């Protein structure tokens, strides 16, 4: 009996499916437990990949719960690429859909933060600008357009996602308090670091990344979030080496 890879694949991911016939030991007995080695390899290696990818989620849930959740996730969303470093893109949405976890509403955004950290770790290298490049008259600064580093990402969460991340990764970090947070991820050299942004910071960065100049993005952000602090946001970007070019359009005279 021939065993197609479709049959093999389906039985690997679903332990309720019978083991394909045509797979045997040296005495021509049905493979039985021998097939389970492959089932186990797939499940264990992908579960391990999920633990590595989402250490804070694993800590928040507990290791055993993470194993169980990863077991469901990996069957619904097997990797679609051999680049395991990027496995788990669908995990935040998967967490959102888990009714049993609805009392932990912050989990999806924590997972988004962990995904962003991993992407930043593998992002392309770049040369940050000399901070002096932004020491220009205010009217020039407001006309400046910025290019951000590939590793730079900003997130907005209705949850204190930065505080939750910090509390679970650093000894002595303060207990998270309720409230929305904007987070900036940069990679100054090789180690990505999340920084707390002023309120409105993520929206402003998204506008700059979409090509608005500093002033346009500032006005639009202030209209939504009057307490937005541009100076602090720019300082965090500079400290994180996250600005790679500045273009100041000349005014027509």
């Amino acid at each position, binding site marked *: *009996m*021939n*065993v*197609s*890879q*479709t049959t*093999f*694949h389906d039985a*690997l*991911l679903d332990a309720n499916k019978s083991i394909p016939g*045509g*797979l*045997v*030991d*040296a*005495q*021509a*007995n049905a*493979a*039985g*437990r*021998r*097939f389970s*080695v*492959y089932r186990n*390899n*797939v499940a264990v*290696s*992908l579960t391990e*990949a999920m633990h590595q990818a989402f250490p804070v989620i694993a800590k928040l849930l507990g290791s055993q719960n993470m194993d169980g959740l990863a077991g469901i996730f990996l069957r619904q969303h*097997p*990797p*679609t*690429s*051999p*680049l*395991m*470093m990027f496995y788990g893109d669908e995990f935040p949405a998967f967490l959102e859909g888990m009714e049993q976890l609805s009392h932990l509403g912050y989990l999806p955004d924590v997972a988004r933060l962990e995904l962003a950290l991993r992407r*930043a*770790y*593998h*992002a*392309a*290298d*770049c040369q940050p600008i000399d901070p002096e490049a932004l020491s220009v008259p205010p009217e020039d600064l407001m006309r400046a357009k910025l290019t951000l580093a*590939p*590793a730079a990402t900003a997130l907005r969460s209705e949850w204190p996602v930065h505080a939750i991340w910090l509390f679970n990764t650093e000894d002595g970090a303060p207990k998270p308090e309720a409230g929305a947070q904007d987070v900036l991820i940069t*990679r100054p050299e*090789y*180690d990505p670091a999340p920084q707390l942004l002023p309120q409105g910071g993520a929206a402003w960065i998204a506008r700059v990344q979409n090509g608005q100049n500093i002033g346009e993005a500032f006005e639009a952000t202030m209209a939504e979030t009057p307490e937005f602090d541009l100076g602090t946001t720019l300082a965090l970007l500079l400290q994180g080496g996250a600005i790679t070019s500045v273009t100041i359009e000349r005014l027509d005279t």
Partner: protein
Amino acid sequence: MLDNALRSNRLPAAPGVGYKPQHFSQILEHAKPVEWLEIHAENYMGDGGRPLAQLRHLSEQFPISVHGVGLSIGGETPLDPDHLARLKHLVGWLNPASFSEHLAWSTHDSHFLNDLLPLPYTDATLTRVCDHIDQVQGVVGRQMLLENPSSYLAFEESTWSEPDFLREITRRTGCGLLLDVNNVFVSATNLDFSPQGYIDAYPLDKVGEIHLGGHDEDEDDHGHPLLIDSHGREVVDPVWALLDYVLDKSGPKPVLIEWDTDVPDWPILRAEAERAKSALDKIPA
């Protein structure tokens, strides 16, 4: 069939180890007797950051072997062109001393299963694997080495022995072979054949690299030993003895220690490399 000019395996006939980032500093300080390093290609397919920076640094001091684990050469579906392009890019950038992949499949229906899955040794598989190897060697522009798998079961439909199957692949494609001696021992134990008999039938003249690794011990439903290729511990004595048997027949070869799970501290991995060096040193001239 591969052009002779592309046969460029330049690994030294000396011990190497599978590179783990936690050993970076110690390798730079105290590598001996390790003379070369192997990386899993897929771990270096990001755009930048520490992995590529470390690799660039190491490649200035050590010959590097690029070992793919995700190409799915035995897959029934076409090779992933994006993945082939990434491999071409990595090999082009690094110009490694060797490039290898597995006689296995891992991708089906766009799902990557993160394991090396087994193939029936039939004429149909042979044709498909050879077509894929021709394609890989054409795109990457290099000879590749093909590694024998660890087997936990057999396919009723198989009509070829594994050594004959591998020999025929090398004849048709011009690829070389990566002989995993632990895999031979694991498969021989699991499927009741003689590991020495396997080596006697195996085309040792095509071997560009040897792998050694640790395995776990289990049992099947009938109480038969079932060894599992885990790369998580020391190489066992019977596998070292099988290495001696191979080297006695093949002469010196590059010998790699693989340790991928529960990765030990550098001195323990180095000690395994020392043992490989002893095996190489005692080959009669």
